[in-house]
């Protein structure tokens, strides 16, 4: 697959939604390829991802373990665990500049100041030896906020993320706080700098649903008031449905479908998306009626061969699917899908 095919018809950037022509995406990933170095040579695990994120939009990336969704977003700020995983090719443009080749100092001014990232494990971003307030203030002063303002902003954001006793939390060390509190501290830290883009890699997966709701509400509110763009990576289709404007579905290291949230749930096109939605217990269905299963397993990235990576599990596969991997094609739901039957 080449990068060019992914942006067929201009949909690579806007996912088929009609945007004014002058509006430029804030973040553009082009043909991003990520490899895992093994003794036999590199194995490509993200195989040419094209994605554009506009200011003021919330994009969801959904996929299962191994689909490449987390690596894709980690590559944006050059946070891939290298070795053994590294960027093999492609560009990541933010405000017209390529982050993949930018020097470290310039990148540091983008990282955490204009693009913030939050993770599933809050300790990824917290230092166990420093008080919460020290860490938040440090983040802010590193990005040219005067120290006095930084202190005020610190208690402000801790309050915003729904912590009931922000002062106590500010003075605590990470080990003195519960997992849910740490998660919110990390989110507070990411939001303190008022980033233009927030990238979230399953940050609420380990949290209770009520806390998750508070965090989604908070991020949604900031998105509304500041126009912060959001990229939300998750395997939770409920979060996708309720929270984002536009969805990309990843499978075996590629985007297999891209559509508006509404269209994706109402008229999914790629057989994998259809199957994924079918696995959910549906309200209104008879109690305990069997759920749709997806037979088989995702392919081993080192043994993909030619053809569509979903073909062995696909109920509608035909000859062409085992010969040629389909590019993203315009789909009946207004989006694009990597399926030879997308237009049917």
């Amino acid at each position, binding site marked *: 697959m080449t990068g060019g095919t992914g942006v067929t018809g201009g949909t690579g950037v806007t996912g088929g939604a009609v945007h004014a022509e002058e509006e430029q995406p804030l973040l553009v990933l082009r043909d991003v390829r990520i490899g895992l170095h093994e003794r036999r040579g590199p194995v490509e695990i993200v195989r040419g991802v094209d994605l554009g994120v506009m200011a003021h939009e919330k994009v969801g990336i959904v996929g299962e*373990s191994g689909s490449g969704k987390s690596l894709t977003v980690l590559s944006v700020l050059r946070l891939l665990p290298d070795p053994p995983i590294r960027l093999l090719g492609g560009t990541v443009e933010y405000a017209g500049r390529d982050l993949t080749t930018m020097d470290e100092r310039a990148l540091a001014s983008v990282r955490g100041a204009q693009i913030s990232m939050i993770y599933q494990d809050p300790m990824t971003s917290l230092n166990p030896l420093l008080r919460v307030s020290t860490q938040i203030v440090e983040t802010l002063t590193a990005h040219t906020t005067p120290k006095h303002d930084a202190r005020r902003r610190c208690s402000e954001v801790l309050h915003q993320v729904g912590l009931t006793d922000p002062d106590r939390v500010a003075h605590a060390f990470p080990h003195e706080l519960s997992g849910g509190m740490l998660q919110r501290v990390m989110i507070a830290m990411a939001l303190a700098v008022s980033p233009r883009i927030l990238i979230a890699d399953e940050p609420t997966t380990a949290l209770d649903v009520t806390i998750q709701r508070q965090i989604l509400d908070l991020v949604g509110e900031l998105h509304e008031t500041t126009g912060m763009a959001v990229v939300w990576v998750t395997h939770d289709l409920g979060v996708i449905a309720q929270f984002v404007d536009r969805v990309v579905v990843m499978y075996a290291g590629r985007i297999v479908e891209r559509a508006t949230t509404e269209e994706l749930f109402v008229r999914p096109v790629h057989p994998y998306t259809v199957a994924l939605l079918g696995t959910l217990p549906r309200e209104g269905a008879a109690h305990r009626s069997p759920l749709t299963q997806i037979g088989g397993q995702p392919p081993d990235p080192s043994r993909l061969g030619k053809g569509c990576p979903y073909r062995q599990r696909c109920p509608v596969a035909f000859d062409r699917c085992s010969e040629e991997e389909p590019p993203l094609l315009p789909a009946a739901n207004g989006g694009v899908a990597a399926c030879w039957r997308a237009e049917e």
Partner: protein
Amino acid sequence: MSGGDVVLRATTVEKEYPSRRGPPVRALRGVSLQLERATTLGIVGESGCGKSTLSRLMVGLELPTRGQLDIMGEPVHPGRALARSIQLVFQDPFSSLDPRVTVEKALTEVLTVHHLAPERAQRQARVDELLGHVALSPRHRDRYPHELSGGQAQRVAIARALAVEPEILVLDEPTSALDVSVRAEMLNLLVRLQGELELSYVFISHDLSMVRHVSDIIAVMYLGQVVEQGPYADVLDTPRHPYTRALAAAVPVPDPGRRPSGQVDGAGAVTMVGEALTAGPAGPTSDGCPYLPRCPLAEQVCAETAPQLGAIGPRHRVACHVALRTARGLPLSEDVPV
């Protein structure tokens, strides 16, 4: 739902853990539940609500401080051998499987320990039968855990639990470590096994859609107490406790056209405030309702006496002064606005 044959009964079970400072932590407060044969009791609640403590008590890993637990009509008491009739399946299958032991060995070990199939041929046949139950083929026998997918490993964990021919499986978040597509497989498997082997399940999860799918009765726990329980549809479609309503409202529904369930029209905000207090010394005092600090509907009485579970429908019970009073003044139909 079949018969009134109770296989597991908890009667005002209390569990306290000593605390270095101050009074003991009360992890469970007067929990009474029962599980009928070949049915599923779903237990939902958030971290710290006591659901995992309860599962450990059920299988006899710990003993209640007060109250009684009966399994198959027999009380769980100190010194009693861990019951074969009740088995626990954990959330993460890989953490409960020995990485150096093949699937076959993991299963035969259990059979040997319990003297279940003394002869080699019998054991082999039983291993194949167990693998068959969980839809794995005999060729999985020689696999090591790292050669299994998450779904397959969870199947092996279930097969191992089934090896001792239990009546009850306690499933503690059995699907949360699995991918979405594998979850469906696992739920289908559990439903099928229940039918084939007449198993009774205690299904513990924070995922309301999963719990709904498999449960007959649902109990909602908050800070060590059951705050609402009843048939699955009553509890999830017409939740009466403000906590259950907040929980149901918080779950993102995989349908962009719909708002989350639980937001009962005209009922005003049910959104809870603040965060759950931890059980124990820092928790609420013994007077008053444990949900009081977060409850948008709280009244004077809620601060004075803790509400007890009271009937609000044929089998539907709730521990909330406001919900109970409102319901008593009105007919017990499903359309009662709370």
